[in-house]
């Protein structure tokens, strides 16, 4: 296929969502060009060799929500994607042997029983309940956001069928769903369990990527995420992509190219071109202009509407909504190249407990303190950490005998007391806090570090274009999901600007390596003959 226009669609940003959208459009016969600012595609799903021989899965590090239908339609397995299951969840403690939750329910029961016998009994029931509710939640993530304000028969039918699905849950599950929607993760878990050692690591999924604490109302619903993962059709929590999360993007890109998508890297877009109220193409930073029938943005809403487009092209009410849309990045990332594996005092030696994710979340109070500390613009001195050692699952990630470690960190507020631009002065101190925290549980860690990459929210913004360093293109709070994401007038990929579509994580159903916004955007465009 020709490398030249005219293009049916230009996708701005080669993040995984942009790539999914481009691939599906091309598969339907459209001519699509992807423009990516960086030298690699993938955005927040990339693998890079920052230190010779060691491959970092730089930002995102686990896969759970990648939609099976996208996987199928883009034949990702054929294009090289392979997921390795993460085997367990380990929570080390300063004293005692910590808690490890295994795929084997009996082993998990024994582990939990060391803290509470009743919790051990209830744990499987909780999992089953969440599993049922996760199936209900899929009604929301695999379709356009419902629109409660619409009176179109199709939309009313969608609302009715969601209502029907809710009623089918039955009174008991509906009640739990109600609580999940409105409660804090900590309060909800309090209703089920008594042991802090269990509740703390479970509550963490409620706060990932948001500047809220485990006791903040509205964080409980994210607990479902942990039970929504589907890998190869099987319901499973988390997986690791062989080759890191860059491999996800690479597979999607390969599929896209196969369908004829042209991908240009190091092609930063400076502006979306307008003619009247119609987006007609883009202008690159180099000054090059490219026209297309449709422009699809894989960037976040603020970058798309306020930076590339400009307020003057937007209806004032809509512009106000976009300005109010909250980012408030609060997460950072530390990647380590290690000479040897860490040795946790809780469970000495090298064992299967290292092959899953490792959470530094000893208690609910610890997590809440980490949040409270960050409210006034400081990074947590003792943060929540989620650690994965990819090289244990995929030895090609590091030279033989050596390892890479991926550490996801909260809280690191974008808005530091001295302003976000002061992050470069605080970056290494932040990295030290992370390593010091982990070293309390795994002494000797510091001596094993060969190289360290520290990414603050400021760095995520500078390097990956994530506004305010928000990992999900905007907070996933109740006021910013479904028909409110990013604003009612743009919640279904179509925007108030003709010919401009939104396909990134700032659109429904939101962030995470799942491809759903990109996939649903493409479907919508094709349905509405938007391209």
């Amino acid at each position, binding site marked *: 296929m020709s490398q030249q226009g005219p293009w049916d669609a230009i996708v701005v940003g080669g993040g995984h969502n942009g790539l999914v959208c481009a691939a599906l459009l091309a598969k339907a016969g459209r001519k699509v060009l992807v423009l990516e600012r960086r030298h690699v595609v993938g955005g927040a799903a990339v693998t890079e060799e920052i230190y010779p021989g060691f491959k970092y899965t730089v930002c995102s590090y686990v896969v759970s929500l990648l939609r099976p239908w996208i996987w199928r339609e883009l034949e990702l397995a054929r294009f090289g994607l392979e997921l390795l299951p993460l085997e367990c969840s380990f929570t080390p403690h300063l004293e005692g042997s910590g808690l490890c939750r295994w795929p084997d329910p009996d082993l998990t029961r024994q582990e939990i029983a060391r803290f509470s016998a009743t919790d051990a009994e209830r744990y499987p029931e909780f999992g089953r309940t969440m599993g049922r509710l996760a199936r209900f939640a899929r009604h929301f993530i695999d379709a356009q956001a419902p629109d409660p304000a619409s009176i179109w028969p199709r939309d009313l039918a969608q609302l009715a069928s969601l209502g029907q699905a809710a009623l089918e849950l039955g009174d008991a599950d509906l009640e739990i769903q*109600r609580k999940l929607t409105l409660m804090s993760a900590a309060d909800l878990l309090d209703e089920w369990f008594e042991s802090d050692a269990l509740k703390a690591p479970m509550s963490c999924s409620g706060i990932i990527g948001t500047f809220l604490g485990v006791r903040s109302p509205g964080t409980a619903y994210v607990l479902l995420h942990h039970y929504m993962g589907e890998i190869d059709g099987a319901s499973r929590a988390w997986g690791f992509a062989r080759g890191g999360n860059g491999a996800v993007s690479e597979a999607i890109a390969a599929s896209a190219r196969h369908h004829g998508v042209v991908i240009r890297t190091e092609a930063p877009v400076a502006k979306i071109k307008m003619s009247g109220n119609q987006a007609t193409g883009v202008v690159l930073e180099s000054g090059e202009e490219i026209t297309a029938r449709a422009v699809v943005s894989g960037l976040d809403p603020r970058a798309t509407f306020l930076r590339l487009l400009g307020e003057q092209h937007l209806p004032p009410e809509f512009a106000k909504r976009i300005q109010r849309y909250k980012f408030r990045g609060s997460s950072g990332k530390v990647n380590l190249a290690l000479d040897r594996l860490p040795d946790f005092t809780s469970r000495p030696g090298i064992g299967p407990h290292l092959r899953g994710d490792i959470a530094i979340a000893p208690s609910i109070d610890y997590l809440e303190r980490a949040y409270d500390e960050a409210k006034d613009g400081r990074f947590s001195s003792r943060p929540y950490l989620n650690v994965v050692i990819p090289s244990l699952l995929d030895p090609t990630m590091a030279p033989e005998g050596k390892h890479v470690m991926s550490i996801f960190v909260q809280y690191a507020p974008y808005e530091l007391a001295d302003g976000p631009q002061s992050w470069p002065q605080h970056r290494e101190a932040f990295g030290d806090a992370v390593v010091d925290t982990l070293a309390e549980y795994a002494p000797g860690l510091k001596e094993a570090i060969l190289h360290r990459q520290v990414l603050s929210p400021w760095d995520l913004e500078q390097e990956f274009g994530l506004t305010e360093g928000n990992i999900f293109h905007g907070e996933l709070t109740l006021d910013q999901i479904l028909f409110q994401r990013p604003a009612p007038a743009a919640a279904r990929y179509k925007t108030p600007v003709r010919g401009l579509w939104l396909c990134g994580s700032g659109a429904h159903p939101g962030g995470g390596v799942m491809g759903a916004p990109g996939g649903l955007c493409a479907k919508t465009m094709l349905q509405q003959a938007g391209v």
Partner: protein
Amino acid sequence: MKAIVIGGGQHGLAAAALLAREGLTTTVLEAGSKPGGLCRGREFVTGYRHTGIHHDSDALRPSAIAALALEEHGLRLRPAPPVFVPSPEPERALQLVASDLVRRQEATGFTAWRASIDGWRQVIGSVLDAPVPPLGVGEAAWPVLKRAVELRMLGAERMIELLRVGVASAEDWLAEHLAEPHLRAAIALPALIGSYMGPRSPHSAGVLLLREALSTPNEVEGGPAALIDALVRVAEHHGATIRLGKQVRTLQLDTGRIKGVELVDGEVLEADVVVSSLDPRATMLGLVPPGAICVPEEDEIRRVRCRSTSAKLHLALSRLPPSASRPDLSPERWRVVRSPRHLEQAFDDQKHGRLPRTPALDVRVPSLSVPGLAPEGHHVLSAHVFGVPARDADAWTEQERQALLDRALAELEVDRPGLRDAIVGHELLVAPDLEQRFGTTGGHLMHGEHALDQLWVGRPGPTYCRGRTPITGLFLASGGVHPMGGVSLMAGLLGGRAAAESR
């Protein structure tokens, strides 16, 4: 037919008045020496009275006043006085009234904010006024659908906006309208007292919105204590008997049906209907004999969260020092706050079990408008102190109480220098004191936290939110049941009606 109402507070008396009017032989059993509960006026220092632990009464529902014909029984309304927000910087001190706001250039934002609430007032009111419909299909679908249609009739934009604001944080919502942080903190404060939230907690805007939508331009002349007087008159007018000093020890049941109550003093009273105005936990876990309800029904109650984050302070003052920032005003209501950040810190402090560095105070000086509360020229100051940890009674040593008092006074003295020297006596009631004195679980003033999941069908839970219980003949009339706590009378009417209808 005999009815017993447990507790002679606002809700118990309202329920009793309804039942007596319906022709039931109604007896109110009140543990205290006077009726009123949290609305009871009390002499806390010899010669000085307050007008209730709850000190505001502007949420009193006009429909409730009408339903009980309270104005025929001596209830008088007056315009609620404006709220004054002092500040160390005199030019930033202001009253939440139009003229002052114009001076501060906050009028446009404030007006827009009020207007958006006014646009939602009716829908919110109709949800709060109606009993919670049973969820599910069939006949139940109708009221739910009706609410949905009402919501939809707001127009797409206002409906979506309501759904957004309802789950936002108070600080985010207010910041969209008001530039002055200190003003935002003052407006948010009342929503935080009674919930387990700081201004940055999601959903705090929803709670604030409910409270604002419930507030009226009027309040009861004489405060909550005068409301109790009127309620006692209505209840007695309809033939109800109010027995004081009668504490119920347990409910007596006969195969899942109520038979009567047994008092602490051993007396046994028979009844066909019992309405409890104690909080749901105190009733269902404290008065219902063990094993009378099944485990899931008991769990539903056990899960009601009642964590108090405030204390109550009463000061007897020999004089009221003038406001340093606005000596020209003599406001009855103040909110002593610094900024949303300080409010959030106070919330965090209590969360981690510490005394608040800077407590925030919702203040009222009832003696400015109610005669006879204090000797001539003297005054009574009543304040909710926000940011107080929920600790056990024995953790509240004299020293800790004094430390809390000192911090509260320090905040008050910023605008009222000399206040400390005017103190004749004081009463500081922390949660365990309130629990002990009034029997409310956790000393919680709202009979259960205000939180979105603890409202509507969640107040206190699907089994109980209509004022009914699994025990035939036992009903709940408490702020812990739909719609919410505070001085509105609504929960009392709801429980009373459910009981009356059961005949």
